[in-house]
């Protein structure tokens, strides 16, 4: 089998190679595993992590937190967004709340959540608070962008409201929902891991990172980071893939 790359893909591969090289050069310069271990050593550590007993539990629990946080944010963001999109009054009510949530530093929320909630629900709560505003704002923008000519047409032809929401509103805002979901996911994973680092639930990538850091196992910290990046990338791909499946009408 022959694998062909486009010119752009070659440039992207070169960019990854550049980052690895820079890493290697820096590790040679510091020459200490406690500061920056070599990339190949870190890679070995990552591979070894896969075989660890607790690996699946650690990754699985973090992913479950992300998925639960995402689903909660998605459902809430979609329903609040639709309500705010159709009712200017509700939008006026919701706007200051969204602004407040978005401009509050994540760490502040985590510190408070640590006091209020159990350690394993803190990361989910943080995920919800970081992701919900993204999805909600995008849904509101999406509804504002709906061509009123289309809803007028549908009403004129006596199409009922339930079908108008299902067949006009939702498809029209689909591209907005997907781009909101994508930014929410991107920021959500980071928030979950920060939440885990600080709240120290029994399992979680953040917990494992914190433990490794305590023992100055820099290679393990970086290995977990790489795994976190991979998880985030897989979910991003999943969203893009579903976008192609759902938004088929774009020429």
């Amino acid at each position: 089998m022959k694998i062909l790359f486009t010119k752009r893909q070659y440039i992207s591969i070169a960019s990854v190679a550049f980052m690895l090289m820079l890493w290697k050069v820096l590790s040679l310069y510091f020459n200490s595993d406690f500061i920056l271990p070599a990339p190949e050593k870190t890679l070995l550590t990552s591979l070894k992590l896969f075989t660890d007993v607790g690996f699946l539990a650690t990754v699985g629990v973090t992913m479950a937190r992300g998925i639960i946080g995402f689903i909660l944010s998605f459902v809430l963001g979609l329903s609040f967004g639709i309500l705010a999109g159709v009712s200017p009054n509700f939008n006026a009510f919701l706007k200051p709340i969204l602004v407040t949530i978005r401009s509050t530093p994540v760490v502040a929320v985590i510190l408070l959540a640590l006091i209020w909630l159990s350690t394993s629900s803190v990361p989910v709560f943080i995920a919800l608070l970081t992701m919900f505003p993204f999805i909600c704002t995008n849904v509101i923008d999406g509804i504002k962008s709906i061509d009123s000519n289309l809803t007028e047409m549908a009403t004129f032809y006596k199409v009922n409201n339930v079908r108008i929401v299902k067949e006009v509103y939702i498809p029209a805002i689909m591209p907005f929902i997907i781009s909101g979901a994508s930014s929410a996911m991107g920021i959500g994973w980071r928030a979950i891991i920060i939440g885990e680092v600080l709240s120290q639930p029994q399992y979680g990538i953040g917990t494992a990172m914190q433990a490794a850091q305590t023992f100055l196992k820099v290679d393990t910290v970086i290995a977990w980071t790489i795994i976190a990046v991979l998880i985030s990338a897989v979910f991003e791909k999943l969203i893009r893939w579903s976008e192609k499946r759902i938004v088929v009408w774009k020429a």
Partner: protein
Amino acid sequence: MSIKIDNLNKSFEGLTLFNNFSIEFTAGTITCILGPSGCGKTTLLNIIGGLTEPTSGNISGINGQALSYIFQEPRLLAWKTVRQNIEFVLNNAYEEAERKSVAQKFIELVELNGFENYYPALLSGGMRQRVSIARAFAYPSTLILMDEPLKGLDIKLKLNLIRAFARIWQSDKRTVLFVTHDVDEAILLGNDIVVFSQAPIKIVTRKNISEPFAERKMNSTSYNELKVDLLKVLND
């Protein structure tokens, strides 16, 4: 049953569009409404269609009846195919199986067979407008309102759409109110041509054309005489 409008009053942003205006439209014919732009032709359609409330007045002949509207823009749902766009408005009227065959029939009448499963983004402007014509006719209405659906299209496309429209109309001869400011469109499609004045609207003249569509030739003597006539009243 003909449509009767009595003593219609409507102002819009301080401008009186209708002042005790009355008119009657014959059922089963295509009435073309010509008039200077901004005179309130579209407002009249929207009042009849229930999209705009009149200040006062009485409309009889459309109570509770289903209406279709061919808008200036095709107003198709981008995420639905040609067939789905037509079926979208048929849900209340037909069972699923029937919906399919009704949609198919009108797709064929506007000569879009082969494009049933295309999304609007892949169609040309003229094809999209044909879908909107098919949608209006597929809907079981007794009256079709048209608001300059041919505006901005080139002459070849216009003639093409007029032919498509005439063919589909012949199949069940519904009442049509066709608002336009283009004299050619009116002569090619109208059985009855009404010319409106500037606001407040008065009927300047009203002409009947009995010639069948197929025999109306652009630039024939009778065509040109009527055109000169209409242009003269429009410009007065």
